[in-house]
């Protein structure tokens, strides 16, 4: 009988009971013997410049206040951004360091009091005046002309293949369009939160963070403490989506408070803080030029990306990724330019590059299909690559065409009227859209340790995180299958910097990386068990490959031994083994991606321009599916994000201050339950052995790449109106609709 906890089974989340009863402890919820003091962040109200005068007298005298930290009295720190050659996850995040303001919302004081109400009240009593920098840069657009050092994920900023100018000029059909995407917030439901505790020697930090190891380094570096004295814990995380990859502002502030007072200090960002004090995705301008033959063969693909980069904080989004990786062509020109701004930090947000790159690029591809007089699906299928278009590398596997065909059939694509704006039902215009989906598949070094105890239970440790992705669950399954144990015999311990160093969560690499390390540890455990049984004379010398591990037992030849028997006989209370994984040659030599095809049906109201998505359907190819239930949830979430990027989300910029105006969850539009269409998700399951020892591929960011473009293309098909400025709000459609 199959182990119900085996890989590929739809095991319920093992942390589910904790989460549905409110007993999973998120960062702000850890209990201490002495209740933590509460810190309230006070934010700068200018984009750049310096603090001229800061009067904290009234705040300090306010009831319940234990301390007011400013640059006058905060503990010593390494200057912001140093060292500047080790990447943004470990460089100093100093704040309350000097009178210098880096962006609107940058912390200028931390009020620490016995209660939130007292801290917040005292915060309002602080008097500050500023000397603003008149040269502050508070907008970014196509004037961006700086070349970033490298793009997130390691791509080169510029890629030229073939002779783009010639290929484009000679093409029979050409398209030259500019798309824009707005500033966007990750808006995880749990605001960034930290409790820091310092006992005079050790700094213990509970925070909501996706990558634990780099956070220890960042805190140690910023606060000038030995990294061995810093412990970071993050067992449950209320959503990250890239915005919690590294250390963010409240963590530094909580640590400064704890160091200053020698007491636990809790700082939870208010939702309004989060929009400036946690990173966001910068706005993009994407100029796309396409050239094709009259029969629809792509000959030239040009993509120029322009985005902001926060001054002193090196992060450039690889927006051209979709243009470089999706279709066959003779020539590619892909460039990325950034503009240094005095604005809140732009950083990773779910699927950096592909998410907003696909929004623009898959829309432009759609435009080109119509220009060539072709069905958008047929046009895509007619331009499938046989190797990576950008790098020229062979594909580890590639079934984008199959995803498109299978999806089209399931969706009922053939029933589509070719002519845009030709189908309606009452006052509703009906449209179908399609987009290709593609996302990098990455493996990063990861380690783990496991212990098999004499009572037959297994514990695994890694500084890995579960941000809602299902890590606890799929790791349980990997151990259950490999060791032949039931789920209730397995304990997965994550989110503590004392555990072995893992990949952490991000870039869709978590399951593959931490899972492969665990697989390796379990394989080593099987070997140890066999050796031990042999040493005790419990088994003969049958080949190890014949051994089976089932129901907590080792079965070899005619012998069936429980793990407990083997351990008891050897006198060991437990056995421990380590496991690890490193990306090998297959990641250097092959182009590795997950794929999918997404389809959307929208209804557009002829009188109001309101768009309602009726159906989304996706067919995805992400190697071996470790747990179809949690995998489906990941894809579901990404499709919701795609819909949202197409129609709803936009941080509105006040250009005078480089500040976002809609810093709350009512004005920053997220989709609600009623906005949900019917969502249909299918897997094409083909384990990819070149990906990692599990054969799985990244899934957490896959569906956000393409869902939005499918919706946008459906809006065009419904109305004949092509909106190139995301999100597609009704005002942008309405003025072009026929009377």
């Amino acid at each position, binding site marked *: 009988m199959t182990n119900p906890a085996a890989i590929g089974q739809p095991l319920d989340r093992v942390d589910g009971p904790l989460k549905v009863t*409110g007993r999973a402890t998120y960062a702000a*919820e850890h209990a201490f013997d002495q209740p933590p003091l509460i810190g309230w962040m006070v934010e700068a109200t200018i984009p750049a410049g310096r603090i001229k005068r800061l009067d904290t007298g009234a705040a300090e005298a306010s009831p319940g206040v234990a301390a007011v930290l400013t640059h006058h009295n905060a503990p010593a720190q390494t200057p912001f951004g140093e060292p500047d050659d080790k990447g943004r996850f470990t460089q100093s995040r100093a704040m309350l360091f000097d009178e210098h303001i880096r962006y609107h919302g940058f912390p200028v004081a931390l009020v620490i009091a016995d209660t939130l109400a007292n801290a917040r009240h005292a915060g309002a009593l602080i008097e500050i005046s500023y000397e603003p920098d008149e040269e502050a840069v508070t907008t970014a657009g196509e004037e961006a002309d700086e070349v970033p050092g490298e793009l997130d994920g390691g791509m080169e900023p510029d890629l030229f293949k073939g002779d783009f100018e010639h290929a484009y000029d000679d093409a029979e059909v050409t398209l030259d369009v500019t798309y824009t995407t707005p500033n966007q917030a*990750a808006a995880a439901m749990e605001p960034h939160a930290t409790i820091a505790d310092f006992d005079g020697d050790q700094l213990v930090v509970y925070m909501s963070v996706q990558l634990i190891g780099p956070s220890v380094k960042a805190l140690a570096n910023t606060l000038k403490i030995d990294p061995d004295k810093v412990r970071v814990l993050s067992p449950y995380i209320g*959503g990250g989506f890239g915005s919690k990859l590294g250390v963010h502002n409240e963590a530094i502030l909580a640590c400064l408070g704890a160091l200053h007072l020698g007491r636990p200090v809790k700082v939870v960002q208010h939702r309004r803080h989060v929009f400036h004090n946690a990173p966001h995705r910068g706005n993009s301008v994407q100029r796309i030029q396409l050239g094709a033959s009259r029969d629809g063969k792509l000959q030239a693909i040009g993509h120029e990306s322009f985005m902001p980069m926060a001054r002193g904080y090196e992060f450039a989004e690889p927006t051209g990724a979709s243009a470089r990786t999706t279709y066959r062509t003779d020539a590619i020109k892909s460039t990325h330019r950034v503009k240094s701004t005095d604005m809140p930090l732009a950083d990773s947000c779910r699927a950096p590059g592909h998410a907003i790159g696909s929004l623009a690029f898959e829309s432009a591809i759609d435009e080109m299909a119509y220009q060539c007089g072709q069905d958008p699906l047929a046009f895509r299928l007619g331009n499938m690559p046989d190797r990576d278009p950008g790098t020229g590398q062979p594909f580890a596997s590639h079934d984008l065409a199959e995803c498109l065909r299978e999806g089209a059939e399931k969706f009922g694509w053939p029933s589509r009227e070719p002519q845009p704006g030709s189908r309606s039902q009452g006052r509703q215009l009906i449209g179908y859209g399609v987009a290709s989906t593609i996302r990098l598949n990455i493996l990063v070094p990861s380690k783990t340790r496991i212990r098999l105890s004499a009572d037959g239970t297994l514990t695994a440790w890694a500084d890995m995180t579960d941000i809602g992705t299902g890590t606890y669950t799929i790791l349980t399954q990997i151990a259950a299958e490999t060791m032949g144990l039931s789920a209730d015999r397995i304990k997965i311990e994550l989110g503590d910097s004392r555990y072995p160093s893992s990949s952490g969560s991000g870039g869709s690499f978590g399951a593959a990386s931490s899972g492969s390390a665990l697989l390796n540890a379990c394989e080593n455990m099987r070997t140890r068990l066999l050796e031990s049984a042999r040493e005790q004379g419990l088994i003969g010398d049958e080949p190890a490959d014949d051994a089976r591990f089932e129901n907590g037992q080792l079965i070899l030849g005619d012998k069936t031994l429980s793990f407990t028997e083997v351990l008891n006989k050897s006198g060991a209370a437990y056995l421990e083994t380590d496991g690890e994984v490193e990306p090998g040659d297959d990641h250097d030599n092959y182009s590795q991606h997950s794929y999918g095809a997404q389809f959307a049906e929208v209804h557009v109201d002829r009188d109001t321009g309101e768009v309602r998505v009726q159906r989304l359907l996706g067919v995805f190819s992400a190697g071996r599916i470790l747990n179809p239930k949690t995998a489906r949830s990941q894809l579901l979430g990404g499709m919701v994000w795609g819909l949202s990027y197409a129609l709803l989300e936009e941080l509105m910029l006040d250009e005078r201050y480089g500040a976002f105006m809609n810093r709350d*969850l009512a004005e920053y539009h997220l989709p609600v339950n009623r906005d949900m269409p019917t969502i249909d998700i299918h897997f094409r399951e083909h384990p990819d052995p070149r990906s990692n020892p599990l054969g799985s591929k990244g899934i957490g960011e896959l569906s956000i790449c393409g869902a939005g473009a499918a919706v946008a293309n459906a809006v065009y098909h419904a109305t004949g109106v092509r909106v190139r400025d995301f999100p597609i709000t009704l005002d942008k459609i309405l003025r072009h609709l026929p009377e």
Partner: protein
Amino acid sequence: MAVLYINGKQVTLDDDPRTTLLDTLRERPGLTGTKKGCDHGQCGACTLLLDGRRVNSCLILAIQCEGSEVTTIEGLSQSQGEQLHPMQQAFVKYDGFQCGYCTPGQICSAVGMLEEVGNGEPSDVTGRGEVTLSRVEIQERMSGNLCRCGAYANIVDAILDTANEHSRKTGGPAT
């Protein structure tokens, strides 16, 4: 000073009168299940049952709740003798969450919502009177609870299943 009944236990509060019901709970060990997502009544993460009706606990001061019964997510399972409440079970079964942060609010909201439906309270989908619990009816009535992980479809599945299960057991309508 206010006396409240939190999950059946009498609690005397002498907190600062500016303190919301949400902050009052979250600063007490064992009651951090109620989440704060926005503190503005915009996300629903703080939803709990106040005298049986769902409310955003960030929008009400603790002292306003004098004499009231507060049921939090912790109380829902306690009321079942530490077993999971059927709604909690269904959320696990249908994977009605990912990160779990909106989840206590979603579950409390769903329990309160089914009560409202049972009482024939109107919504944008159905006017006053008998309510048929369709997907869109649930979607409409649950739209005050944001889920950034996008678990909405699974949340609706979980609620439908709980309601159907309940009506099978009681022979009453699916509410």
